Structure formats: structure tokens, C-alpha cells
């Protein structure tokens, strides 16, 4: 497990002694390589999205620090999933800015480019390749050159096999490596998707309801995993399971009607009258 975390560790932000900041900036944008020198990995400002008159996000502003584990809670329709859609390029924001690091403008990038820049996403409903084996699921999501030419002649190197084997152990599916993924239990599918995310070696992980449908034991292990990942990765977890949130959260953001209602430590949020009203009231 420790070796796993190390192999997943992000590289430290490069030193920037250059005086020509503007040139540096353009270069970084050109290469799509995010710059985390200021300690912020994700920066959403004033994001609004509406669908046919329904205001899904309403001037949402949010900043996630490098290495942070942030939990996002909020009643149904608060805009949690839409927020993830905006970050990953699935939905375009009507207005506002979204930056990965301080230089990568997410609003101009496709889903593929955003994923390549280092943002991984787990969907609310486990989304895995159901007709592929567990092993193949991890193989396909592994960080690699993902162009057609390479894929046609790709051959798994032994260190790549080792990494897949490591992840298989981590998500406790090593016995099921050659099974078709569609036959896994719901909880196992959740774990497989988390494993796929880790194979991608993203810098930022967005996890939409990762423990839904998991047994208590599985939930506990997921909590352990997330806590151990934080620091080396940044995590944004959307979850309804309050016990789980309380277990892992350092900072909790409460969304309501498309914007941030409150933000702070979990115990303070649980006693915040506005939060209580949103969850119980009216």
C-alpha cells in the first residue's frame, strides 16, 4: 500500500526562477501542464450554468488546495454533479472561470484534454467497461501515450504489469483479474472504478458518491484509502453518506441551489443553522 502511494505521488511543482513570467505562462499553457506553484489545484470563480431556465449552478466559487481532501455535500439538485461536469468538460459553463492550477483554462478544453491534464473522475453510477475483464479495465485506464498509433502496437511492459497487479491488490480484486467486469458486485465495481482512476495517476480526483452501494466494511476501507491518498493527490468527494463524510472530511463545502452555502470543518457545518435548515427544513 505504501509503495502504491509512492508510485502515485505527484511530482513537486517545478521551481520557477525565470524572470520572464509571461513567456513561462504561455509555455505552460501550450504544454497544458498545470502550474501549482501557488498551492491551488482547482479554482472555480463565479460559475453559472442553466438548463432550459433551471439554474443548476449560480455564481459558484470554489478553490481546492494541492493535496486537500474536500467533501462536498448538499441536498439533491444542489448542483454537485453539474459542478463536476463543468470541471471535466462535460458541460460548458455559461459564465465564470475554471482553472486547473493557475494556468490551465478548463473552459477551453475537451473532456479528453482535461483528463490528460490530470483530472480523473468517478461517476455517480459506476462506469466501467462491462465487457472487458478487470485487468483490461485497468490496462486501458493506465497512464500512457493514448494515441491511435501507439495503441495499435502497444505491448504491456513488465513494470506496467506490476503496476496493474499492485492496483489489483489495492482494490482487492486480484482474484477477479480475468473476470468480466460486468459480473462484479456493485461495491466491487465502485472499487474497480477507483482503481481505474488511480491507474490514470491524476493530480486531482473527483469522486461522485464513491461509497454508494458499498457494505460497511467496504466503506471503511474506502475511507482509509482516501485519507491515505490525500496529500499526494487532491480529492474532491461528493457524498450523501454523512458518517463517511465525517470520517474523512477535513473541510466540508455545502452546496445549495447552485452556490456555496457554507464551508468549514464538519462539526461546525453540522451545527450551522443554515445547513440544518437546507437539509431538514421547509
Amino acid at each position: 500500500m505504501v509503495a502504491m502511494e509512492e508510485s502515485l505521488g505527484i511530482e513537486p511543482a517545478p521551481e520557477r526562477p525565470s524572470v520572464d513570467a509571461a513567456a513561462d505562462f504561455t509555455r505552460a499553457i501550450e504544454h497544458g501542464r498545470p502550474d501549482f506553484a501557488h498551492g491551488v489545484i482547482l479554482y472555480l470563480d463565479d460559475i453559472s450554468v442553466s438548463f432550459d431556465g433551471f439554474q443548476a449552478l449560480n455564481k459558484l466559487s470554489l478553490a481546492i488546495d494541492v493535496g486537500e481532501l474536500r467533501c462536498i455535500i448538499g441536498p439533491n439538485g444542489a448542483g454537485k454533479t453539474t459542478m463536476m461536469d463543468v470541471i471535466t468538460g462535460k458541460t460548458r459553463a455559461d459564465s465564470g472561470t475554471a482553472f486547473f492550477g493557475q494556468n490551465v483554462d478548463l473552459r477551453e478544453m475537451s473532456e479528453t484534454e482535461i483528463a490528460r491534464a490530470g483530472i480523473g473522475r468517478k461517476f455517480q453510477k459506476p462506469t466501467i467497461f462491462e465487457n472487458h475483464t478487470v485487468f483490461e479495465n485497468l490496462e486501458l485506464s493506465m497512464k500512457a501515450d493514448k494515441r491511435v498509433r501507439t495503441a495499435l502496437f502497444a505491448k504491456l511492459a513488465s513494470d506496467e504489469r506490476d503496476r496493474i497487479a499492485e492496483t489489483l491488490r489495492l482494490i482487492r480484486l486480484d482474484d477477479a483479474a480475468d473476470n468480466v467486469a460486468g459480473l462484479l458486485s456493485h461495491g466491487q465495481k465502485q472499487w474497480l472504478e477507483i482503481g481505474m482512476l488511480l491507474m490514470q495517476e491524476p493530480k486531482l480526483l473527483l469522486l461522485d458518491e464513491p461509497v454508494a452501494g458499498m457494505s460497511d466494511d467496504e466503506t471503511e476501507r474506502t475511507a482509509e484509502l482516501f485519507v491515505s491518498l490525500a496529500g499526494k493527490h487532491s480529492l474532491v468527494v461528493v457524498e450523501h453518506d454523512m458518517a463517511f463524510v465525517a470520517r474523512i472530511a477535513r473541510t466540508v463545502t455545502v452546496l445549495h441551489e447552485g452556490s456555496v452555502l457554507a464551508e468549514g470543518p464538519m462539526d461546525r457545518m453540522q451545527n450551522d443553522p443554515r445547513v440544518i435548515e437546507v437539509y431538514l427544513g421547509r
Partner: protein
Amino acid sequence: MGPIADRIASAIARLYGARGWSTLAAFALVLFVMFPLCNLVVPPGNPFYLSAYWVTLVGKIMCYAIVALAMDLVWGYTGILSLGHGLFFALGGYAFGMYLMRQIGSDGQYRANMPDFMVFLDWNEFPWQWWNSDQFWWCALLVVLVPGLLAYVFGYFAFRSRIKGVYFSIITQALTYAAMLLFFRNNTGFGGNNGFTDFKRILGIPITIPETRMALFAITGATLIAALLLGRYIVTSKFGRILAAIRDAEQRIMFCGYDPIQYKLFIWTLSAVMCGIAGALYVPQVGIINPGEMSPANSIEIAIWVAVGGRGTLVGAIVGAGLVNGAKSFFTQAFPEYWLYVLGLIFILVTLFMPKGVVGLWSQWKNRSA
């Protein structure tokens, strides 16, 4: 063993197991030994004699099988249902047909050094499309380039606009229909509704003599086997697994950092090129190409072959093309007016009772008895 020999050995093992390779060897034996022997060596009247009818029929079906393979790569593996693959087939056929028309020389009805339809239309010179068409290499190049380029450009816009599912199918159907109308016009320069026919020679050799027919048959058989192995190489590669992943969860593959447009474009264009080559092999054997090959019904039939044989198996595509076209040539002779009903019935029965097609029957039956 050297590293190259190593690579070849591992590729052979990857493509098929012992049973697969021996089946393929048996198939090759039938094509390359039995057919030439029974057609060219065995005298007519002998019970083992195979007439030119059979050589042409099986040769034609093998061309269809290549198209079915191409269809299976995009439909069975990538989930893109094309209802316009007949267009790429016809374009390949027309490209090579131009060369065959030029090979007629001045042996046409009008004894002019031009195709008959041009003389009939009072044309004095070849239109620009016919530039260099007396050169074999040029037409062979067009066979690949024309369907390939059209598919690439069409695919680029369609995939980039994220046109999917039934919408994509309908547009491909419209594309082949539009092309058919275009080729029906005399002004398009390809013989209007009569198309090309009455071929005399290929590479200077008479086209109707048994040896030429057998050579075309053998080339078609070799191309079919090569297409099968290429398809197999693709679907067993990481690229192939990505295609299937695009089919099952395109969203996820994007969030994994793959660009599905590039992958679709590659397999779509390759598939069109395979169809073009099949069309070029078809025309000299069947002796005619006309815009009817672009009719929407033809393209739909291609999808039926693959569905009958079994999607996403490659072998199923070949089996399906063989079965449906075998049945077609039987019915259109025995009960011509009922063929379309039979075809419709086959399609319905396969959809209802054999979701995995004919080659899926075995596993279906095994699962039931288990």
C-alpha cells in the same frame, strides 16, 4: 530465435489458437487447391467438376464477406452502425471499373477508342475523372483513395459533431442514396444507370477465360484471409479493446484521456478502404457495376449479413455473408418473388432468437443446457 521471429510467433499465437489456424488452413486448402483442381483440371461431366458458375458465385460471396468484415469492425466492435457501406464498395468497384472500361480499347460496339456510353453521348474526349484511367496502378490507387478519403472527410465531421446511433445510421443511408442519384446521371461521367459492363480484358489478358477467373478468385480468397487476419490483429490489440470500450462507455474512455474521434476515424476509414478493395475485386468477377450497388437496400443488407453471422466476432461476418448470399442465390432462382420476404424473416428470427448470430448459437446452446 531472433526478436523478429519472436514477435511473429507471439502474433500468431495471439491471433488464433491451434483450432482456429487449422480451420483457416482447411479453408485455404479448399480455396487454393480444391477449387483450381476441380475447375481447371477435372474435365466437365466428371462429378467433381466445378463449373464457372460456382467459381463466380463463391468469388462474389467472398467479396461480400470482406465487406461484412469491414462492417463488423465498425458496428460489432465500435458500435457505429453504418447503413452506407455499399457506397464505399461501389466506389471501389467504379474506380477499378474505369480501368476495365479502358481495357476494352476499340473492341466496343462503336469500335471507338472510348467506352460505348461516351460515344453514345457524343463525347469527344474523356472527362477529368477519367484522367490516367488506362493505368492499372492509378485505378488501383483510386480504389483505396476514393472510399478512404470520402470516409475520412465524412467521418471527421460526423464524429467531431458527436453524431451517434440512429442519427449516424440515417446520415450514412442518405449519403449512399445521394451518391446513387448522382451516379444515375449521365453527366457524372460513369455511364449513368447502365454503369460499366462488357469488360474484355484485365492487364491485357482476356477476362472471361477460366484461368483469369481462377486467378481473380484466388486473389479474392487471399484478400479475404488477409482482411480476417488484419481484423483479428486489430481487435486483439489494445486499440481493439479501446474500440470496444468506446462502444460500451464512450464517456468513460474520454475521461481516461483517449480521444474517441481519432479512434473512430481510423477504424471507419480503414473499414471503407476494405470495402473499396472488395468492390474492385467484385467488378471483374461479376462483370458489371451500376448505381444499383449504392441503393440503400444494399447497404442495409450488409448489416443483416453481420447480424445473422454474429456481431463482434469477425468469423460471424464471413459466415453471415456466406449464409445470406447463399440463400439469396438459391431463392432468387427458385422463388424470385419471395426473396425479400425470406430476408426480412431471417432478420426478424435472428433478432428474436439469435442475438449473437449463427456463430453465437453454440455458446447460447451450451449456456442453456448448463
